[in-house]
């Protein structure tokens, strides 16, 4: 029995469906139950959170957690489907410290909020950047200019007025 089925048996209320993602078992989790399901998964031995991917499908967001167990040498993929208007899901930083940066990156680039994250600020882009680039409706035509201010904080503007040398 693959771990996705196992998870469904353990938590029948929170797993919406199971399947396979190429060769990896996949379980779609209700977004309210993610933290409980993830805790259960970690108990099952999935100790390595490989990656968190946020995807914008224009009508919904999906957050995908790729997990691996060093003991059992098994993969498991967890998927949560989020509403497009208010993408918010529980943070997994309490279970995996590595989730901290991965969630910040997902927040930064895709714009998914992680409730309970200790420090949910942008990581790759400067604070104050307009829009989340990996959303499909991101405005790529507006140029944004970034400089480092006197106190070391980033300043973002759309007209380049903060630059010394104008275009």
């Amino acid at each position: 029995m693959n771990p996705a089925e196992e998870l469904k048996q353990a938590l029948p209320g929170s797993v919406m469906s199971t399947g396979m993602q190429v060769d990896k078992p996949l379980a779609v989790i209700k977004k309210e139950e993610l933290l409980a399901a993830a805790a259960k998964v970690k108990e099952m031995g999935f100790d390595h959170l490989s990656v968190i991917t946020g995807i914008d499908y224009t009508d919904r967001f999906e957050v995908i957690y790729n997990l691996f167990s060093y003991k059992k040498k098994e993969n498991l993929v967890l998927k949560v489907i989020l509403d497009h208007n208010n993408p918010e899901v529980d943070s997994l930083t309490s279970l995996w410290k590595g989730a901290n940066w991965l969630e910040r990156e997902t927040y930064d680039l895709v714009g998914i909020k992680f409730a309970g994250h200790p420090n949910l600020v942008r990581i790759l882009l400067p604070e104050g950047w307009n829009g989340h680039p990996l959303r499909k409706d991101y405005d790529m035509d507006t140029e944004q200019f970034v400089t480092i201010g006197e106190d070391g904080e980033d300043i973002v503007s759309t007209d380049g007025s903060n630059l010394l040398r104008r275009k």
Partner: protein
Amino acid sequence: METEELLINMGPVHPSTHGVLRFKLRMDGEIIKECTIVLGYLHRGTEKLAEMKTYLQFIPYTDRLDYVSAMPSNYAYVKAVEELADIEVPLRAEYIRVLVMELNRIVNHLVAIGSLLMDLGASTMMMWGFREREKALQLFEMLCGARMTFSYMRIGGVREDLPDGFIPKLKEFIEDMEKRIADYEQLINNNEIFLMRMKGIATISAEEAINYGMTGPTLRGSGVNYDIRRLEPYSIYPDLDFKVCVRSEGDSYARYIVRIDEMRESLHILRQLIDNMPESSIIATQKYGIIPMTGAPYTAQTYFPRIFTPPAGEVYSRIEAPKGELGFYIVSDGTTKPYRIKIRSPSFCNLAAIPQLVRGLKIPDLIAAFGSIDVVLGDVDR
């Protein structure tokens, strides 16, 4: 005595941040009380670019992720696409791929050790490492025409076959490398000052390291017997004989020793590959085969599928890059361009543990710990 906290801004332009990384340090004299990492100075939006490129056009961009070891980045991407489209790769192509990846692992570790020692103030190792690296880069240049950004792998194979004189030169390199590694070890391994600087510095336990999602030599240095080449064997690694180098201490020195040992293992793998190199085509033709022009050589150029359309689907595929687990999450919607590519870069996840590692240490320890993690900023910021 009333003392003031000192705020120090290391970077983005600083000699030992290996690129453009910024540490915000809250210091009590020389002791780091809090370290905050500011990223993004090299952010080029590779993941966004991927949505606008065809599957083939994205291959050169993967070179630019981890520019010190571009072959594994290349491979991780084409492997993911091959899994998505279910392409079977000819055996010779797989042998060549593993060969260049292991060669690149040596190159990466040479740079990692060299820059670590450079940060510690011993510039000699950097130059010696670059001497051997130059030989490896010349091999790459012979093979694909570029020295760092190869763009050598193709979906379903590799771009060009091994050129004449490649194997003898590689053998020469392996012979030479054995002697040079002995030199490095004589110079560094037992150096008392090096040991003072590295032993017991920035120690991380196995559980913590796993929890942080650290991978690669960093995790193996903490005593986790893990290697994706073994756990989830891909390509021809199941047929190869190699040992997973593990150290249990979890400190900077253990990470360094793991790298030295891995270079030896890579040389061992290279020897096996040379001995067993099979004869076959170098690019898959079963699905996207194009009839070559008469008399044209059997290369990727002639078998190049100009429009490549994988079926719709999602795949996450990962490999053991020199720095750790490198994964590509590809979502295809059945068009010529990927819908979404997410890159799981080893440097990014390893770097996340630095603030925890260096708390309570001193600035020189931060440098040593950062050097021993081996981060390339192109890989972190993407």
